[in-house]
């Protein structure tokens, strides 16, 4: 068992890998009523291909991971939802690019709820009728997202950034790809990915670590060490962007512009990814944060509004910066943003850097308040071989030189994807 105390942030961390291969993390929160547990499977929307130990390659239609998330709620013994309702706890799940997460929150009946969670995720029942039923629900979910302008801008951006990397596919897939999914595909997917040594269980709340680990050891006493050998395969992604400019039209109040910059480097050392993502976000904050002139010069010229946002996402194999704004002056806005980026190195200011650091430290502390938000960060960092509670040290270790280096590589004079969502006129 690993135990760590993070004194500066008042946090504790327990970690233990059980014989069955399941890794368990406990973050005690004695002052909270809520107890939160998430079983996180290391498979997400980008995992569409794998090679097993006999070198056989398996492929899955886009949306399979998300379909699995839906179908596991259909159980032989009865409704999963009802089982949790009976306990008063709330259960749900979500699929991201890299993970499928099944979670519940409970003020009472924690262990009974945990038992339910583990049972339904680990004991699937793939009934063809239920599969067909779920297809119609998922198609409605896809339609719901398609009507969201911010979702569309993100989706279009990924289409522009990537040639092959499956991050470009909608997490839920398309109506067509969902139609291809059947019992055989789901069984194959489950057998490969849903093994205990490919999962993490994260528990946050007023829970005693000894009791939790004993309970889980007991629960899995009949499970042997589960290990399925496979290698996830991703297509080779060419460097550079796929589409420079794309326009669509939606029924919205004002046009939306989205710019994307692709990080072409791969990081073999996973520990560097976290730091890289943080400092890339700080670069964007230094250029476009509300504290400095650029944001206000754009705002005062009506080239952006309060909905202006930016962020940088780093994955194992790729990364990208996204800049989002709403404006009636589309071209002027895009040109000004690009200009600001390409001229920023002339006005770098040490004082701005200190302010940005302050801001990120505060933002980090705030992220620890919500158990849901905390758990998703813990999962993300865990997958990268990092502890989210170390992030404060990473932020503090970042220097202005790091920021400028990253600016030179990611942004200065780089090509960018431009997505424009025009307004449908009557």
């Amino acid at each position, binding site marked *: 068992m690993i135990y760590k105390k993070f004194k500066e*942030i*008042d946090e504790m961390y327990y970690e233990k890998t059980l014989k069955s291969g399941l890794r368990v993390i406990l973050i005690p*929160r004695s*002052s*909270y*009523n*809520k107890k939160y547990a998430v079983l996180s499977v290391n498979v997400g929307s980008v995992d569409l291909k794998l090679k097993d130990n006999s070198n056989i390659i398996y492929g899955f239609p886009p949306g399979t991971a998300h379909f699995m998330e839906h179908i596991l709620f259909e159980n032989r013994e009865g*409704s999963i*939802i*009802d089982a949790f*309702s*009976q306990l*008063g*706890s*709330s259960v749900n799940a979500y699929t991201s690019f890299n993970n499928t997460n099944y979670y519940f929150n*409970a*003020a*009472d009946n924690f262990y009974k709820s945990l038992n339910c969670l583990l049972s339904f995720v680990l004991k699937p029942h793939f009934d063809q009728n239920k599969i067909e*039923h779920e297809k*119609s*629900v*998922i198609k*409605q*979910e896809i*339609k*719901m997202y398609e*009507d*969201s*302008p911010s979702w569309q801008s993100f989706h279009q951006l990924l289409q522009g950034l990537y040639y092959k990397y499956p991050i470009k596919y909608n997490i839920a897939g398309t109506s067509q790809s969902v139609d291809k999914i059947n019992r055989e595909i789901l069984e194959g997917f489950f057998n490969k990915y849903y093994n205990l040594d490919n999962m993490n269980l994260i528990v946050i709340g*007023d829970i005693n670590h000894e009791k939790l680990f004993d309970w889980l050891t007991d629960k899995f006493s009949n499970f042997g060490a589960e290990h399925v050998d496979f290698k996830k395969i991703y297509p080779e992604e060419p460097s550079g962007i796929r589409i420079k400019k794309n326009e669509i039209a*939606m*029924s*919205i*109040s*004002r046009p939306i512009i989205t710019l994307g910059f692709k990080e072409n480097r791969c990081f073999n050392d996973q520990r560097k990814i976290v730091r890289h993502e943080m400092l890339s976000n700080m670069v964007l904050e230094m250029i476009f*944060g*509300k*504290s*400095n*002139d650029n*944001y*206000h010069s754009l705002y005062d010229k009506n080239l952006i*509004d*309060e909905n202006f946002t930016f962020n940088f996402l780093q994955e194992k194999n790729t990364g990208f910066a996204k800049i989002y704004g709403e404006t009636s002056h589309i071209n002027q806005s895009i040109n000004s943003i690009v200009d600001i980026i390409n001229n920023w190195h002339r006005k770098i200011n040490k004082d701005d850097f200190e*302010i*940005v650091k*302050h*801001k*990120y*430290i*505060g*933002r980090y*502390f*705030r992220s620890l*308040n*919500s*158990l849901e938000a905390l758990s998703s960060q813990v999962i993300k960092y865990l997958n990268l071989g990092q502890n989210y509670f170390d992030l404060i040290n990473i932020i503090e270790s970042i220097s202005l030189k790091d920021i400028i280096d990253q600016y030179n590589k990611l942004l200065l004079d780089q090509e960018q994807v431009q997505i424009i969502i025009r307004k*449908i*006129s*009557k």
Partner: protein
Amino acid sequence: MLKTSKFYQYKTDNEIDLYINYNSKFKTNYIHLDIIRPLSDEAAVSKNALIPYILYRGSKKYPTNQAISRRLDRLYGADLNVSVARRGENQILRFSIDIINDRYHYGPEDLKIAAVDFLYELIFNPLIVEEEFKKAHINKGQAFLKEKILAMKNNKNNYVMERCYQEMCRGERFSLYPLGTIRGLRKANCDNLYNYYQQVLAKSPIEIFAVGDIKQKKDFFQYINKKFVYKRNKLLPLNNTVIKTGGFQFKEKEEEDRINQTKLSAGIRIPVTRSHPLYFALIVYNGILGGFSHSKLFTEVREEKGLAYYINTRLESTKGLILINAGIDMLDYQIVKNIITKKLKEMSRGQFDDDSIRWTKKKLINRYKNLSDNNHSIVDAFLLGLINGKQDSLNYVINSIAEVKKDEIIEVAKKAKLTTYFLLKPGSVQHDL
């Protein structure tokens, strides 16, 4: 055991209410100030909504939005929120700051005091030029508010809910969008806006909430008491809501838009609010009908028939309204309507089993217990109690929910009247704001 902390109540010499919820569970301290106005008419609502967005452009001490942002970032990226909300027929101008707990920084400043000072500067010490807000800030505020009103249609789900409220409450003040309207903004007399704002500050109930590591409660209160000194008149009431109990006419409205999915809202009247003896039965009723994933609507529409990804209910307990919301295929509209009608009937005939009551109660109790783990929710829930003149402790709420009887739920169900359907369906763009 329930872990919760209570609110300590204070009143400043000029009748500003302060509620301190002392606990050390959060990494931040949350300071929140509400100015409460009656939702009165289109012009006044638009004019009120304008004020926070003018103030946000700059104050005397922080004369530009950039100066405001710079100060906040220096305060470890303190999270400032400026917004306008509607609770019942009240319009609430809200300002809040979430700032890191003083345990986590080494600087000399007391950050919760810095947050109070900052809110004071923003709200009570605006940038005034010749007895008026700075002209450029008024213009920016107006442009911003206008865009925000128009942006209502970008989120189709919210648009449909708001339109349903408008149709069902036509002629009542609740139908006013809390941010106002473009027409209202045009109609509003924006001369002497600062003078108007001074009246607002003089006459409106002002509620301050502080949630977090505030051990020296009395000192904190005294600090606010000494700082927030200005001339106050007789205050307007805290709640201005009128509950309509009859004379409803069934209405069905639809609009078209360039969308993929049909979105519907069904509006239900239930004249039961917080001080009503059936209030807790109403909470359970809403839960059984559509509050959860084991609820009647979700079970049939999604789990049995696969007609929707989402179908849920939203309770407005100050005005006594429930909205049923769903995203469906236009072809299934009649089927979904029939299911809604059937479920409402089943509720009033008592056709729901003991399990659904028991599970709903447990889920509600879980939700109430979890509420005290979120500093924003703590304030939101407490404010609703204040407005409705009934501040129940969490323990009391939980016990009251546990005691709700089936008969009482049926009694609530019999009071429920489905009065309105609003539908946004795929087609050409029709609506105009």
